[in-house]
């Protein structure tokens, strides 16, 4: 069985390529290249740090020189001033940078991405000015006399230092690749693009962002520490904004988010820096313009471009190897599918498990929900219908925790959900889809669906790196493939979501919920955009889930489908509950027809007496007011 997150983790070939370059090239070129190679290793480590923060977790830092400076000065202070050993000093350099990152993260990770970039920019520029002002760190002179790395009774020479640094860098590459292909890495790549999806799958995005930031900064700090060791002196002027540009170039030109790309980029940058000294003042011009050109022309970077070109030469296995597991049902056979699902299920009994009471939500004066009440029984399929703008999606967002209501309560299986953060609701069995399918377009179908297993797969960062998570992932990948197979998506499992049709996107998102075997499933516009065959599949799966005890709430505009599938239906209009009852009752209700179907019922007749009065249906309001509260923490 292949691994869950990629058929064959990319990067192994590149790792071999880098290793070969490192251990063959500079020794062959002669000892002059040792120091260049050592510099390259330091750049590579810092670039990996930035790639973890930016490429994987989506938060660019423009203050990497701050973390490098902290790492370098930590080593300098600890060895020169305190007389500790170099090894201990390097550990300190990692910790100092990571702690600084946590502090910056505490300040800025709750801000919009762009403000975070500003905060890191300020941080990176501030650190050298502090070092410049402090007597303790030697002001502008800095600190010198940092010992080398001892090996027995002598210090490592330049060649040995080069080999050691690249050894460390390569270990870093391997560990970072393991992070990338772990469940934690997957969750980072998802929230980098779409925070709501990650939260709805149970990812505590705030904590994970901090983690990614601290880990990336820690590696960057280590790069700084090793720089101090290799140069034996540190001074504030070294840590200028140029470091940021060089690292941005390494990451973007090499291939953001690939880990190996930035390492290749760092090697290229080191060589370019060597030759650019001949350009005089034009180094910045070449780097600056070259960077912008790379951003525009090869946004995927060197590594991804090579992969794409190589991939284009090979025929696409996934497209041809598997026939679709479920043959597309054409229109002629579709009615048959309808006929079989026309058997009415027994109405679910039992006490309501999902209770919504008096929920109101107001968006800057626009009333989206006003005193909405709803009760759903275990195993019930509950339809929510109403015209556009009726508040259906807002109601679902309130239940799933992406929006906090101004007033009212939501309880699920006796637990008060109202103020619970969205990610925590996933552990109570809640899963949802979105009105427009929310998938990360540059991840494969399989990877997107795999995030649904976030709650059940061991997801710790450390476990992902050193543990046997891969074995567990292999076992659970059966689950993913089985679900994809059931939904007729097995043949596109390895395609990126940017290549899918709308219906396939919708089913993929449904699959992400299915793999979790949810207790409460919320489907927003469950079937819109699906063809007849896909609708039949969906209906079938929803029924199976409900029979197995899952409670389902679905928003859908296909009234025929709602009438057939749903045990009960609630009609919303302008944020209030207009009517509630079985599908048959509802679609014969005159006020529903008036608001939703332009005054005509399903058979084109009009003017049937309302069975229920909207006023009487609404539940009592609870005067709970939550204002301006943050959704996720």
């Amino acid at each position, binding site marked *: 069985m292949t691994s869950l997150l990629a058929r064959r983790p990319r990067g192994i070939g590149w790792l071999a390529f880098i290793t070969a370059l490192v251990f063959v090239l500079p020794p062959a070129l002669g000892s002059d290249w040792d120091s260049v190679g050592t510099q390259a290793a330091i750049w590579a480590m810092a670039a990996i740090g930035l790639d973890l923060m930016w490429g994987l977790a989506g938060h660019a830092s423009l203050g990497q020189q701050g973390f490098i400076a902290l790492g370098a000065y930590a080593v300098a202070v600890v060895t020169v001033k305190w007389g500790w050993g170099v090894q201990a000093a390097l550990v300190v350099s990692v910790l100092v940078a990571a702690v600084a990152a946590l502090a910056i993260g505490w*300040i800025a990770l709750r801000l*919009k991405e762009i*403000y975070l970039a500003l905060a890191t920019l300020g941080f990176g520029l501030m650190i050298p000015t502090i070092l410049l002002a402090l007597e303790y760190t030697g002001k502008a002179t800095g600190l010198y006399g940092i010992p080398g790395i001892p090996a027995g009774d002598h210090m490592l020479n330049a060649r040995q230092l080069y080999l050691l640094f690249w050894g460390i860098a390569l270990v870093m590459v391997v560990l970072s690749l393991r992070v990338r292909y772990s469940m934690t890495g997957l969750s980072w790549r998802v929230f980098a693009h779409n925070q709501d999806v990650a939260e709805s799958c149970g990812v505590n995005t705030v904590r994970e962002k901090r983690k990614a930031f601290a880990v990336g900064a820690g590696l960057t700090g280590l790069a700084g520490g090793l720089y101090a060791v290799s140069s034996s002196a540190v001074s504030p002027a070294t840590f200028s904004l140029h470091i940021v540009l060089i690292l941005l170039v390494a990451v973007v030109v090499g291939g953001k988010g690939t880990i190996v790309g930035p390492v290749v980029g760092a090697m290229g940058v080191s060589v370019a820096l060597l030759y650019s000294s001949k350009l005089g*003042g034009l180094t910045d011009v070449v780097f*600056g313009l070259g960077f912008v050109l790379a951003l525009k022309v090869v946004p995927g970077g060197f590594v991804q471009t090579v992969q794409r070109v190589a991939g284009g030469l090979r025929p696409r296995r996934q497209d041809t190897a598997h026939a679709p597991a479920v043959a597309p049902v054409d229109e002629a056979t579709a009615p048959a599918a309808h006929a079989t699902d026309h058997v009415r299920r027994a109405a679910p009994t039992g006490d309501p498990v999902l209770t919504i009471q008096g929920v109101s939500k107001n968006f800057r004066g626009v009333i989206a929900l006003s005193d909405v009440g709803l009760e759903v029984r275990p195993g019930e399929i509950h339809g929510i219908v109403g015209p556009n703008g009726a508040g259906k999606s807002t109601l679902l967002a309130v239940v799933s925790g992406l929006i906090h209501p101004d007033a009212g309560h939501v309880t699920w299986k006796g637990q008060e959900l109202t103020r619970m953060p969205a990610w925590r609701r996933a552990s109570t069995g809640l899963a949802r889809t979105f009105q427009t399918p929310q998938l990360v377009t540059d991840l494969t179908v399989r990877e997107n669906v795999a995030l649904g297993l976030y709650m059940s797969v061991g997801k710790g960062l450390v476990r992902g790196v050193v543990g046997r998570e891969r074995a567990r992932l292999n076992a659970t990948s059966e689950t993913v493939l089985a679900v994809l197979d059931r939904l007729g998506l097995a043949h596109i499992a390895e395609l990126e979501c940017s290549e899918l049709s709308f219906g396939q996107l919708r089913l993929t998102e449904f699959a992400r919920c299915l793999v979790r075997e949810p207790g409460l499933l919320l489907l927003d516009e469950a079937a819109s955009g699906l063809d007849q065959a896909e609708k039949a599949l969906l209906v079938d799966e929803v029924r199976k889930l409900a029979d197995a005890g899952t409670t389902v709430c679905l928003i859908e505009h296909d009234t025929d489908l709602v009438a057939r599938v749903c045990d009960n239906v609630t009609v919303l209009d302008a944020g209030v509950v207009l009517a509630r009852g079985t599908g048959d009752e509802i679609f014969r209700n005159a006020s529903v027809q008036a608001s939703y179907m332009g005054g005509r019922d399903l058979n084109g007749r009009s003017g049937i007496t309302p069975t229920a009065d909207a006023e009487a249906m609404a539940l009592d309001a609870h005067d709970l007011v939550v204002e301006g509260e943050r959704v996720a923490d």
Partner: protein
Amino acid sequence: MYQQALISGIALGVAYGIMGLGFTLIYRSTRVLNLAHGAVVMGVALTLTRWNIGNPVVRVLAGVALGVVGMAVVHLVFMRPFSGALPITRLSALVGAMFAAGGIAQKVFGTESYILKPLAEGHFTMPLLGGRASTHEMISLVGVLVVVVALSVFFARSLPGKSLRAIADDEAGARLVGIRTEFALLGGSMLAGGLAGLAAVIVAPQVGVSFLSGFDWTLVAVTTAVVGGITSEWGALAGGLVVGIAQGIMLVKAPQWFLTIEFGILILILAFRPEGLFGGEPAVEGAR
């Protein structure tokens, strides 16, 4: 002592305010943090030191014209090609622009620092406050106030101003109602460029200019804009005064912390009042 610190702080603050103003102007229409703003100010200031124009009015006009052209180039080369990209990509492209400009300036003007001729010679003693101010600083203060008033009227009343606000809110929507967004955005950038040119003739006589000034001034503009609340004209001016006065005091009390205080203010504001001291759009994610 402190009166002098206050006066030189206000003088700095006025110059900072006009930089922040140009910076917020581009943010308001494009949602891009224009990290090349300081570079344009630097480019204008360095060019003017070469041209050596005697008449101050002509110098101001030349500065404004240079700024307009410079920012148009930045817009066409570093902003428009990335108009559909992620915010962070757009920001990165401007990092590239900032360095490219610094590199070109170093090649053309070398590493020396130049002082631009002030708008007027002479000093006088401030009434009430005591302490000495230069005529240049007074003219600048009045000039900047006029510009801020004009800009608030422009955004509140005029059609082009409203168009820019509409684009900031919803670019596709603005296009649908018939606003030629590409044209309008270029116009917005050129307006910001004019302000950058104005900033150059104000600030370069006070603190001098070298190829490194672009970085410093971009950071000044960023800090000023964040302190003031990134979408407000008066906020930008007030933010400039806060940063300028803080630095003025530092110059007197502890000059080695002169730069640290600026970055410290930036981080503290982002930490505790990310929407700025004087209101502005919320900078916090997820609050719905």
